[in-house]
């Protein structure tokens, strides 16, 4: 029996019971669409996070004062030594892998221009920071390349901060007060949103020395180090730890690589995607049980037809083929419709939130289709076997 004939016969049987067929199609469709959409969201979240980190710069080491692991090496008081500008200078001088070193101090202060004022984040750093963190400027310049301890009275405003203080006037050259300090505005950042918990639109960036004085800090908040190449990260970290330990006479800093954070996030989100896909796959098996039920009903409703097929000399293999084909048609068609529906939903998500890179990974498409077809065949076998197992005389005895 040619496959075309099997298909024609099975299709006729399916369209003959359109409601039943539609319902089981729907089951498979929802399962497949769920896999497609959920994995797209998971993958989108992963890409989004990775992208966020990358936009903050790559090949970065971050030095924090204090140790995150508990250990006995710290003093009785447990208070770490200050992380100082001298430490940052030493790193820049001694660590050959370090391409850029940007010390950072951070706090909040009132920023005012004439009668307007706002309480915003003050970030003290150096010109190195711009390239290490890939900070984009909308207007003017970033902090000047100057001697670390000089601390000029200049400031770079975030996009929103500039707007709130100056409306549409050009802030470049104007003098703002930051916590009582008179600072000349030399640049405005491009709009870039929140990254790593810092809102880059609503802050003011000042030279690190000025920032420390202004905020009354003796210790740096962080030291950001960008190394030349990804492969330098581990060595550079070890050397930084050694260097600072030697300078502080104890190991009282933590050095994290941003890549480690990225890959941890990426792995977590990958696992999440897989888990969600697995849940969706379970819903596909439920759809399979639906197919099985539909086919079982179909077989028992068509008992006398099966008896007739046997009487006219249709063999068991042909009967099996016909019923399996019906189950497979449901699952394949349901799978394809589900794929299309899922794709449309993902497209809609992308259209509504262009920043969110939702995209179904190829493996998920393959898995969804594969599982739906396997489900159709596997769950089609039991009803099909029941059909071939019918006694033709008893089957024909039914009207």
């Amino acid at each position: 029996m040619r496959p075309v004939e099997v298909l024609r016969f099975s299709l006729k049987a399916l369209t003959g019971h359109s409601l039943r067929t539609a319902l089981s199609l729907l089951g498979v469709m929802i399962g497949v669409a769920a896999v497609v959409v959920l994995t797209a969201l998971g993958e989108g979240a992963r890409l989004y996070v990775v992208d966020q980190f990358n936009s903050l710069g790559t090949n970065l080491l971050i030095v924090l004062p204090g140790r995150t692991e508990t250990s006995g090496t710290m003093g009785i008081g447990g208070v770490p030594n200050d992380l100082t500008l001298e430490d940052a200078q030493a790193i820049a001088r001694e660590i050959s892998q370090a391409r850029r070193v940007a010390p950072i101090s951070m706090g909040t202060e009132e920023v005012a221009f004439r009668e307007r004022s706002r309480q915003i984040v003050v970030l003290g750093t150096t010109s190195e920071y711009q390239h290490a963190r890939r900070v984009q400027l909308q207007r003017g310049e970033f902090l000047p390349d100057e001697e670390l301890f000089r601390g000029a009275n200049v400031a770079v405003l975030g996009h929103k901060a500039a707007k709130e203080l100056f409306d549409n006037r050009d802030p470049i050259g104007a003098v703002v007060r930051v916590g009582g300090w008179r600072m000349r505005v030399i640049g405005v950042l491009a709009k870039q949103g929140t990254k790593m918990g810092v809102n880059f639109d609503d802050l003011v960036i000042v030279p690190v020395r000025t920032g420390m004085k202004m905020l009354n800090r003796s210790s740096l908040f962080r030291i950001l180090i960008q190394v030349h190449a990804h492969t330098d990260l581990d060595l550079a970290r070890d050397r930084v730890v050694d260097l600072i330990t030697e300078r502080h006479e104890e190991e009282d800093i933590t050095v994290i690589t941003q890549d480690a954070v990225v890959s941890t996030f990426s792995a977590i989100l990958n696992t999440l995607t897989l888990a969600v896909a697995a849940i969706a796959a379970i819903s596909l098996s439920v759809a399979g049980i639906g197919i099985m039920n539909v086919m079982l009903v179909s077989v028992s409703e068509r008992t006398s037809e099966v008896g007739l097929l046997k009487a006219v000399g249709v063999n068991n293999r042909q009967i099996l083929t016909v019923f399996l084909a019906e189950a497979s048609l449901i699952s394949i068609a349901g799978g394809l419709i589900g794929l299309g529906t899922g794709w449309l939903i993902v497209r809609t998500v992308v259209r509504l939130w262009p920043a969110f890179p939702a995209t179904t990974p190829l493996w998920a498409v393959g898995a969804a289709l594969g599982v739906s077809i396997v489900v159709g065949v596997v769950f089609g076998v039991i009803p099909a076997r029941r059909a071939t197992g019918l006694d033709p005389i008893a089957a024909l005895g039914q009207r």
Partner: protein
Amino acid sequence: MIRLEGICRTFEVGDQPVYALVDVQEEIRAGEHVAIMGPSGSGKSTLLNIVGCLDRPTAGSYHLDDREVGQLDDGELTQIRRHEIGFVFQFFHLVSRLTAQENVEMPMVFANLPRAERRERARQALDAVGVGARADHLPEQLSGGERQRVALARATILRPKILLADEPTGNLDSKSGRVVLDLLDGLNDDGLTLIVVTHDARVAHRADRVIVLVDGKIAKRAPGDRINEVLSLLAEEDE
């Protein structure tokens, strides 16, 4: 061509055996027209199913031409049903979602005949039984007589040598019944071996020979035109 020797068919119902056929001895030649009569439960349908290779006897031997059917496997019996035997049933057994044309084509689909040939042969067969005009109608749109004629076209579409009919007129009024019987007679005239199970003496009357079953045994044999005498004789014996 059909030779039955010592055929028994016993059903096990619980631990209670039901003897549906007991030591049936019979020979039917090619081209014969035989009627099987007998009271309800006498084993008529059981005998027809064995002759049609839908069922196997529990004892005895059945020779079809020069083959001993008991020696054949299920696949070979399926082939025999496909190519050598046609069935007509009291309740037609048309597939309700298929048109008359498609019902007649169905055996040819599973026998792998090309589409164009199927079309042509089904149309001719429907014309031959006088329902060519209803080819595209569904069974529910046809009268009982028309349905049985479609079923007859289907049963003969693969040109079997033997046609088995179990109460073919049992569900028809006498006029539609006569049309179907005339068609059956015509097929028999063309050389088809015809075995008809019936309760109706007028149907049996058309046969060359009549076999009367009682309690699974052949109680009487008679020429078709003497069936009435035989039946009254049997009725007297009963009293």
